[in-house]
């Protein structure tokens, strides 16, 4: 099983990388981009086929190390 977890800064946390990215794509002519946010994608390969167990372990890992809850949110995009 492979899991994909998207980690992003919370909406109220300044995203300097996103701000600069928006400025630079506008510089290339993509002026219709009003905002950019930059996050991280974590992929985890699990042994076994216990999907619910894997989701529980992912949540536990997010709480312990993958995510800093004071500035980040996460979303489990897929476990398959």
């Amino acid at each position, binding site marked *: 099983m492979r899991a994909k977890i998207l980690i992003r*800064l919370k909406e*109220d*946390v*300044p995203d*300097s*990388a996103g*701000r*600069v990215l928006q400025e630079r794509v506008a510089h290339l002519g993509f002026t219709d981009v009003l905002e950019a946010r930059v996050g*991280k994608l974590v992929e985890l390969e699990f042994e076994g086929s216990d999907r619910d167990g894997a989701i529980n372990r992912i949540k536990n890992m997010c709480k312990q*190390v*993958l995510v*800093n809850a*004071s*500035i980040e949110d996460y979303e489990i995009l897929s476990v398959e």
Partner: protein
Amino acid sequence: MYRIAVPKFPGASGAEDVVYAYSSVIGDVEAYTVAPEAERLGKPDAVIIPGGYSFGDYLRPGGLAKTCRVSGAIKKFARDGGPILGVGNGFQILCELDLLPGALIINYSTSFMNEQAYIKVASNLCPFTKHLAEEKVLRMPISCYYGAFFADPRTLRELEQDDHIAFRYCNHLGDTDDPIGFNGSLNSIAGIISRHGNVMGMMPHPERAVEAVRGGTDGLAVLSSVLIPDSNPESAQSADGPSEST
């Protein structure tokens, strides 16, 4: 002799700077590194968590340091009231360990900042600032990409109300009026103190400001403060023979 433990996380480059500052410049201090998987700190009087990109800043600066066994010993030392200073990446690690509130995010400029910074003492309620006069301006290097302090409004309010802002960025005159500040840190925060006052984190590097030949000696006042008994504040600014811990 006063003992200072310096946990050395994988990839972190700043441990030797801290050991050198205490052992060779300040003197009369036993400063020693502690391995990342050590379960004990070796009965130190204080702990300094150095800067320098533990685990290559992978995932988040300081984020993977909390997987090391020594982090448990650091948390216990903090719970027992021991004085802890985290510098640069050490500050980020202390936030990740929940020993300090908030987090450090990318500088507003999105640039790696490697330059001299001016900071002003905002609170001396901590072992590492207790002998520094409030409003005193210090100059020392900063070297970081994730250097801007962020906290939610409630946490920020509590830090201000409780007088737990240790240092603020300023100009050479001590002014902190710039809304973006030095690097985008909220309220120009360069360092904070924990709820119980024994843990401090700061982004500027006092251990790299201990010799005139390296650009200045203002860091000595911070590093020496923890060594000096409360009854002898006048010698806080001197690096020549700090007193032993009581």
